């Protein structure tokens, strides 16, 4: 079985070869004074449609003959890279200066940029999430968050009865209630920052000196929940990112397709007979 690295090397070599072939074809078309932009445009349109079909493919997971999603993803990535190359040829290494074409240009690179971000995120986040701690289903995170909060609040209430002290409960109300109620430190988790956790633990260390022995045991229990919530927020942040980039990538793709279609119409209507 091929390793990921060898497979990537092989695919990149293949992609490079395809690009070289197309670059030569492009050079020959250019030299032949052929309507090169129309040729590259059609190739580009084909690539974009193929790339969009990957999203369609995911809507039909029950059709095995379409191939695995992983297989499609591989194609999606490398065809995507080829599309960037083709686009550069299509615009003839120039930045367009018409309003419509500038929008098209921006849309294309918005899709490309979000796609590259997507590759980065999908390569990085799963690895980090696994390394960090327990991985959880994204849809269950609110439930787990509530469970943790309930557990912590139960501990706090019980400690009031058992120790007749409100120090811990006040600490919970002031410092921890907000923390357990909703996702926290999402951006910082994405950048692997430990500062929020360290600050919170400092707060815990500060309050610990005012607690008696029973309360300290409860506090240790709460600290373990704090760490659990921290991991949950970490998972949430990365999974949100894993899903969130598609909120940009896919919608912009459809806008790009609409603009590309009109671009094709305009190109054929106004091509000036150079065909």
């Amino acid at each position: 079985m091929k390793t990921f690295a060898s497979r990537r090397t092989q695919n990149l070599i293949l992609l490079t070869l395809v690009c070289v072939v197309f670059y030569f074809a492009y050079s020959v078309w250019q030299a032949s004074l052929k309507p090169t932009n129309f040729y590259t445009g059609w190739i580009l349109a084909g690539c974009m449609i193929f790339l969009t079909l990957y999203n369609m493919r995911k809507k039909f997971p029950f059709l095995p003959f379409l191939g695995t999603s992983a297989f499609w993803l591989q194609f999606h990535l490398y065809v995507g890279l080829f599309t960037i190359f083709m686009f550069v040829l299509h615009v003839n290494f120039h930045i367009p200066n018409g309003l419509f074409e500038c929008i098209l240009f921006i849309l294309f690179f918005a899709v490309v940029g979000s796609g590259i971000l997507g590759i980065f995120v999908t390569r990085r986040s799963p690895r980090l999430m696994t390394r960090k701690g327990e991985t959880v289903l994204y849809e269950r995170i609110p439930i787990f968050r509530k469970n943790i909060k309930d557990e912590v609040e139960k501990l706090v209430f019980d400690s009031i009865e058992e120790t007749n002290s409100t120090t811990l409960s006040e600490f919970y109300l002031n410092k921890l209630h907000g923390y357990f109620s909703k996702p926290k430190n999402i951006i910082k988790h994405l950048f692997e920052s430990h500062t929020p956790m360290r600050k919170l633990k400092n707060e815990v260390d500060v309050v610990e000196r005012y607690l008696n022995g029973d309360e300290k045991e409860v506090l240790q229990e709460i600290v373990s929940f704090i760490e659990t919530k921290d991991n949950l927020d970490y998972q949430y942040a990365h999974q949100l990112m894993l899903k969130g980039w598609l909120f940009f990538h896919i919608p912009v793709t459809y806008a790009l397709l609409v603009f590309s279609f009109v671009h094709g119409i305009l190109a054929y209507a106004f091509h000036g007979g150079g065909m």
Partner: protein
Amino acid sequence: MTKKLQIFDFDKSHYERPNQKWVCGRLEHGCPCHVGPDTKGRCRAVNDKLLECTPWKDEDRWKCARPKSLGGACENGPSPTGVCCRQIPVCQPKLSHRAKRGRVALYFAMTAVATLFIFLFGIYTTSFASPGSLTAPHSAITAKLEGQDDCSICHTAGKGDALAWVGEAFAGHNSKLSESHKCLDCHRQQGDKRGKEAESFALRIHGISDERLQSSTEKVSKKKDSVELFPLADFTNMKKSFVTSLASREVVKEVVDGKNKYHQVACSTCHREHHGRDYNLTKLTNEQCQTCHSIKFSSFAHGHPMFDHFPYERRTRIMFDHTTHFGEYFKQKKNEGMKNIPNKCNACHKLDEGEHLMVVKTFEQTCIQCHEKDILKQDEDIPVIRFPGFLMEDFYAQSKKFRMRPKFNKWPSVDEEDTGEATDFMRMLLSKEKAFEDQDLSEYLETWISDIVAESPADEEKNEIKAINAYVSMIQGLCDEIAKEDTSALKERLEKILKISVDNETLKNLFPNVADMLQVVQARVLPPINPKRKQRFSAFEFEEKELPTGWYFSEYTLKYRPAKHGDTVMKTWLELMARSYNKDDENKEDEVQGNTHYVFQALNRCVKCHSIDKSEDKDAVWKINWKPNKPSNQGRFNRFSHAPHLALLDDVGCVKCHTLKKTMPVEGEKHDLFVKDKYNKIYENKDPHKFMSNFEFMKKDLCSQCHVKSRAGDNCTLCHNYHVTPFAPALNTTIEEIKKKVSIRHFKNKMQGILPQKEVAKK
């Protein structure tokens, strides 16, 4: 130590369905119901009053059936009637993550469509749809149209709205050549007429006729063996050579009887607009230039065909032998003490106004010092009409004897010594007179006209008296025609003799300002028999030393003396003679027979230096080269600019490139010797391309020393014109025409909008 949160045991974990469109509204609070909303996003607990479980009956007791994944059996358990006590709370279902994404995608697509709709059918349509700014000159057109930014100026599709563009996009491609005709509204190839596309070569390949293109292709194809596409010496250019070898474009449309019909080429094939203000519309790569060519090569330095007789394609128009002038004449003149003897090329040559090409300076700046006297030749004035003398007393006496009345009253009565032969002009101008058709007279007339002097009527022959009458009448008639303001008779005479059409401008210049003199000569000078009148006649004769320039009358002869170099009368007569030179004997150039030949010889002082070529015009036999070559980069495949090369010349000057052929043989070596006799001989042949140059032909290596990519550049378009016939610059009038067109179109559009409204109002 973190807590474990997720358990996937079958009874502790329910099944997640992230692809469902709706999720329970309480999910975000961490307590979703286990049934979830229906497919339309409605909470199922609202109408169905769903409960958390359906209790089951164990013998006579109802027991809670809540699954373990939801917390197992509840504390309170079902009611005694077996109803679950925990009703699922109502919520406002929310879109799942995936459905939200789908909706955002839909909104984006709709926004894109709406944006396009607004701009394509509403505001700023042309600015929005424009693929980029035009080059500066083309932008200026729209600027001059005072904001009427209209795509239809250049695009046929521009006249419609966005919906029409869709139709245009799917229209046939052949119709798109009409876009190029719009380019020709402003950019006409020189010589083309506005609005006559059918007569234009502008869209033909190289802007030339199919015949010329085919012959040029065949000419170049002969050099196929001397070109190289993959020379080892040009290894670095291998990639481009590879591309060049693969690039091809079909140019021949069809072949009919061995003649190629070529495709037309749209302007936008090479000139791509909308790439910014400073975009170079004429930029073409070497590979692009060669795509249509049958022979391809690597670069100018490597593989380009060798120069063939470059740059001298024909003999010089002015017969100027550089070798003998520099080697012999100038030295001789210098020894004679003449000053300002030319010693460098720039004594006679200079850059033209465009500073591209070298031209010859004027006669007055160059040759006049030595050659003025050859032109004026004051002792060799040109006799045009001679009034031949007869012994009029004898003539009248014999006329009386034969009871014949003379047809003229006055005529010079001269002694036999003064009888004059007919001039060359008379021989020609009188050659088609009707009197020659009379067999009785023709013998006398042809004798007088052709070669010998007119004689007095010595013999007592009646026919001779008749012939004298006819001859004198012919001459008087000719003088009348010349003297008349109405030149129609003279025109008829010349066209009959020369078999060519003669325009009024030419007629005007043949005998300018001679009418008065002829009238006087006819009315007063030609004396009656009375010798006393001779005194009056002599009043019109001049002493040799005081002869005026132009027309004058001397010795019974109308003569012409050229005033200066470039004399109009001389030029006009020579031009006329050259056009019609012995037209009856076109194939007998070597023979000197023919009327025009004599006149030509009478004026031959001009053609000593002005060479004569066989005319390419079907209506003319010869063409006299009145002016030296005025080199031009137009109408040719090649172009050259001297100005940037002048700085490269060292002490030897122009000779660095234009090497003069050696005049003297070097012992033991064989040379293509250039000698004076040979030089003059090449002009005897009227084909200007069969020649021998004073200079060595230039080699490609001379140019390729500098013209490589890294130095002076080796782009094809540096030395070659694609548009052999250049395009005339767009004139201001064109802007007015465009304005007019646009105004008319806008007016029509407005009217189309107004008329239906009026009809509605009438109804």
